[in-house]
């Protein structure tokens, strides 16, 4: 048994043994669980993929004369201003003003909230256009200026939902192509789209949320942030397989960190043809190896993680609950899966290569004493499921 405090001491003195969630699999195979649990202190996990539920709070400081912003656009992308005078909230999936969306189907969705965030973090200049009705104390009615992230007082990223524990695989059984957030799907189940880092994914390595909870320090695109809550649609009550790993969406995390400290390589605007805009974000989460049980959880491998294949032409939008089949991540990553005797090509939306890179960066930061672990201040709910919408009338 080790405590987080003991592990932190080892990290501070540069003695911590840190492996990535990929490396730990072979290490435990070689050394045996008991011996490895004595040696290994931390396992790093990561994921790098689109997170639609992302946004940021920005504070601009006061203009002269002051303005209480009631409508605002950042590079022509509308930002929410129903908060304090010069605070704005920018959402990742917000389209640029006048984007034809899917009027000209399938739309290109070249630029939106996620792209503005990418520009900000890359240090580029962004235009603010703001309107107001004017008050005695805030007489300004219109404002147009340009700024970079350095000009802001605060730029705080918030992801109400991130790090989906697992996710389904999208396929198209109809006879027409469809455009989804898991990519372009050819008719007659010719290809499928998935989005998970599998064996590297944070919540698949801690499936019962033993070490990841509210207050856990995380690596968010290079900045040190933390889990501030369970994520939206967190629904841990689900079907679970080997080592208790869910075969459905299951748990999610709400994350936050300072955008000024982020690395633009891991914050990328996403344009999904026919679907919309989003943001891809790199996340790394360290798992303290408290005991053998915890180490065992981190040895989960792709072939033991299952995902459900769902028809996005009918069953997904109509919420029929029908599942076409179950595959594992080793099959998905091989490039082809077999479904009902048919070969289906696979494509991933999240970057496994990117997740590997993040797990290695976090490993190095912990080894060198730059990144310390934190004890959660409260656990994530372990029993709850997602309710469908209540529709009246």
């Amino acid at each position, binding site marked *: 048994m080790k405590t987080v405090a003991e592990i932190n001491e080892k990290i501070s003195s540069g003695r911590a043994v840190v492996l990535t969630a990929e490396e730990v699999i072979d290490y435990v195979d070689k050394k045996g669980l008991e011996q490895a649990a004595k040696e290994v202190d931390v396992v790093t996990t990561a994921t790098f993929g689109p997170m639609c539920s992302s946004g940021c709070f920005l504070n601009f400081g006061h203009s002269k004369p002051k303005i209480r912003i009631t409508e605002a656009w950042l590079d022509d992308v509308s930002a929410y201003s129903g908060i304090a005078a010069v605070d704005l909230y920018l959402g990742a999936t917000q389209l640029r003003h006048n984007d034809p969306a899917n009027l000209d189907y399938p739309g290109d969705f070249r630029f939106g909230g996620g792209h503005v965030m990418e520009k900000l973090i890359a240090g580029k200049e962004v235009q603010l256009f703001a309107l107001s009705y004017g008050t005695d104390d805030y007489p300004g009615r219109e404002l147009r200026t340009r700024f970079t992230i350095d000009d802001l007082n605060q730029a705080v990223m918030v992801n109400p939902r991130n790090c989906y524990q697992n996710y389904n695989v999208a396929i198209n059984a109809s006879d027409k192509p469809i455009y989804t957030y898991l990519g372009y799907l050819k008719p007659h189940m010719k*290809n499928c789209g998935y989005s998970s880092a599998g064996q590297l994914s944070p919540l698949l390595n801690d499936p019962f949320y033993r070490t990841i909870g509210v207050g856990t320090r995380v690596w968010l695109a290079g900045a040190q942030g933390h889990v501030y809550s369970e994520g939206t649609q967190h629904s841990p009550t689900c079907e679970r397989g080997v080592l208790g790993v869910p075969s459905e969406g299951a748990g999610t995390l709400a994350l936050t960190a300072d955008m000024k400290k982020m690395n633009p390589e891991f914050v*990328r605007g996403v*344009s999904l043809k026919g679907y919309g805009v*989003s943001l891809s974000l790199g996340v790394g989460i360290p798992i303290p190896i408290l005991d053998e049980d915890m180490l065992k959880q981190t040895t989960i491998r792709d072939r033991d993680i299952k995902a459900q294949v769902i028809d996005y032409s009918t069953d997904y939008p109509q919420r029929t609950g029908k599942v076409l089949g179950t595959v594992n991540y080793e099959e998905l990553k091989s490039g082809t899966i077999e479904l009902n005797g048919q070969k289906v090509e696979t494509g*991933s939306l999240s970057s496994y*290569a990117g997740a*590997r890179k993040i797990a290695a960066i976090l490993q190095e930061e912990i080894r060198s004493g730059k990144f310390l672990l934190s004890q959660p201040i409260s656990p994530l709910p372990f029993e709850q499921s997602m309710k469908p919408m209540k529709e009246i009338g």
Partner: protein
Amino acid sequence: MSDNITKKIMLYFPECETESPIVYHLVKDYDLMINIFRAKVTPEEEGYLVLDITGSDGNIHQATEWLQSLGIIVNETDKGVKWDQNRCVQCGSCVPHCPTGALSIPDRSTMEIRFESNKCIECLSCIKVCPYEAVTSIF
């Protein structure tokens, strides 16, 4: 025919040379086999043509000189489809849509993406599906 070589080239016509039946001459006068991937004439009357030419080294050389004498720019290095390694996040979304394996994942343990422009037939499928504008067409 065993000493035949195949080259992928991009022709750029500053002001369109459409008057001259270029492909006809390449086949007839220089004994080349032509496989056209993509052609475009812009409203500014510029033209692009991306093609494979197969023939003897000498004939390809002479044909290239003839094209250049017409004011056509022959580009053997640049291709019409570009992959930007820095913009690519290595997701692999494009891979099942690439018909030739020009975009591929050679090592399934690292899942890193490789782009081989000599295999690219410029079908533009990847441009449609890449969420990060990592692949673009120069025309």
